[in-house]
């Protein structure tokens, strides 16, 4: 077991896959000489050269489309979009094309492409640079959407995503790049897509999250544990395919469910899970399913406003306590 940052784990996965499979290549803005805007690809351009670590102009629609075309030929492009906000420029390529091709072609050809992109807020990057848009993509058949929340998952899931034969949107998180964690030594370590993980066991309430919000959830669970309340935290890891079964098993045990996410609640991940939990656990619930999300405003710049808009621990905790109070546990 070695301690690595989330950023280093991603870099190692890219490095391993570039070394393993000559069809894998990277493409994106500033990923070479500049080492990536968030330094994930540092050193890879020197190691693999400009053909396999291909720098692009600011042409998201163009190079996401080019990734699709290359993938249809059997290459395995790993495209970096500097932050998820800029993927909107390439939305047509992702939704109208990458997600549709295999089906429209009657299964004749697939798009084994990964789009890596970080989202998240909290550094005063303001409205156009602070969004968590993964739920929009997770609603679309034809692509897979994953969002690792730990160092080991960042490594294991990126490798799985690159080897997957379908387009995968791989959502990283700006706040997590410097987070450290342990990574298994096994060079063959991979994590399957579509499998959630119970990252903390508890009996009183199930708190479901993905990406950086998992860390917030774990901190809330720690705090509340001091008051004798045991929260079970489920890390979704993958939004599409979604592991509703692991969530349901947990809710059957705790009888209460709270979903936290950084994106907007309305039509969000929590909305989807609430529907599934009500169907799968209707008889087990002691309280309505609750959710916490980012305030439904374009993210403001000013620090006090930004803090008011983020789904911070205090808000998650208040929601959890509200749910417990509603169902008779104080």
């Amino acid at each position, binding site marked *: 077991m070695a301690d690595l940052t989330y950023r280093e784990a991603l870099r190692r996965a890219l490095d391993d896959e570039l070394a393993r499979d000559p069809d894998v290549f990277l493409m994106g803005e500033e990923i070479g000489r*500049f080492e990536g805007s968030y330094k994930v690809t540092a050193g890879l351009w020197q190691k693999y050269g400009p053909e396999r670590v291909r720098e692009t102009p600011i042409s998201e629609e163009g190079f996401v489309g080019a990734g699709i075309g290359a993938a249809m030929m059997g290459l395995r492009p790993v495209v970096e979009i500097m932050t998820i906000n800029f993927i909107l420029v390439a939305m047509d390529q992702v939704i109208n094309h990458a997600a549709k091709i295999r089906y429209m072609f009657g299964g004749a050809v697939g798009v084994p492409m990964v789009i890596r992109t970080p989202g998240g807020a909290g550094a005063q990057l303001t409205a156009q640079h602070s969004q968590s848009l993964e739920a929009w993509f997770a609603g679309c058949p034809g692509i897979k959407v994953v969002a690792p929340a730990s160092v080991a998952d960042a490594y294991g899931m990126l490798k799985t995503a690159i080897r997957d034969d379908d387009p995968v949107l791989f959502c990283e998180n700006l706040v997590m790049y410097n987070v450290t964690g342990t990574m298994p030594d096994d060079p063959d370590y991979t994590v399957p897509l579509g499998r959630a993980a119970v990252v903390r066991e508890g009996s009183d309430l199930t708190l479901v999250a993905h990406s950086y919000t998992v860390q917030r959830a774990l901190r809330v669970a720690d705090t509340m544990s001091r008051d004798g309340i045991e929260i079970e935290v489920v890390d979704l890891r993958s939004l599409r395919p979604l592991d509703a079964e692991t969530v349901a098993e947990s809710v059957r045990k705790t009888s209460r469910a709270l979903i936290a996410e950084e994106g907007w609640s309305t039509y969000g991940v929590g909305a989807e899970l609430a529907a599934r939990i009500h169907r799968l656990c209707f008889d087990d619930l002691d309280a309505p399913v609750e959710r916490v999300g980012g305030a439904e405003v374009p993210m403001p710049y*000013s620090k006090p406003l930004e803090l008011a808009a983020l789904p911070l621990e205090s808000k998650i905790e208040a929601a959890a306590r*509200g749910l417990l109070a509603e169902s008779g546990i104080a």
Partner: protein
Amino acid sequence: MAKAAETPPDTLLDKDTALRLFRMMALIRRFEERTEEQYTRARIGGYCHLAIGEEASTVGAIDALEPGDCLYASYRDHGTALAVGSEPVAVMAELFGKETGVAHGRGGSMHLMDVQRRFFGGWGIVGAHLPIATGTALALSYRDLPNAVLCQFGDGAVETGSFHEALNLAGVWDLPIVFQIINNQYGMGTSVEQSSAEPDLWRRAAAYRMHGERIDGNDVLAVREATARLMGIARRERRPALLETITYRFRGHSVADAGKVYRSAEEIESWRKRDPITRFGLHCSERGLLEQDEIDQVWSDVAAEVKSAIDEALGAAFPDPDTLYEHVYGDSAWREQFSRMRAGAPFGERGEERTWQT
């Protein structure tokens, strides 16, 4: 190519103009240097892009605007705001996230604007404001107004699809707009040669049968002359143009970038020798337009002005978090429209039982 200009070239004629241009470039330089320092003191957050070195491209162009003309810019917009006449204290307050900022702390460094002065924004998605600026030109044309739009953006924006679509629309609709590429030769760390199949960016205009032109963007008078001429044609003849002003940013892409990995010390040094402000100062003193003591006076005046802007902005209040939900919508019916959405609604939950959701 456009016909030869009908108005004579606008050269520097008088002392007032010389002083105005010099003072504005000096103000921007000091403002940016102090902004950098305020950032390291953690009074400014988020991304922060300085335009040190690019003053002539900004000031020369904006000085050529007439009342009623409209302006668009990228996120590298502190100097832009100052050049249109926004109060330095209001700009600094915005960078500090204060309620007295130009956008009441909602927009920050990248999204400065001054609608009263027809500065319609600093924008964060590269290339995205070109079609928007084109729409503003459409509105001017639609309303038969005698004005035009100046749309500034970086060299990197030329590679976006929006660039092509905006220029084509402006061309096919005969819109009064001048697209100004502030070519500082790099995107973040990617040079124009690396990202553009046609590094003579001004030549792209030919694809739209539009007038294209490249000038020295560190020569404030050349920038002013070209902008005045092209804006004049846009206003009078409803013909768009593409103007490329060649300049250089002395700092990194943002305060997070040292700006050294992808370019050599010699290159930076060679551009320092072409510093637009020093150069204009020399030009003015050689022609007897500004004495050295007047130049010194300008520098101490702008330093004092920026200092008082910082002091005053520091004392201003932050926005009240209770105003978080203001301005998401503006139609007078919005409260009524959202009133039945209940918990989880964008606004409905405030003050109700589920306060944690806000």
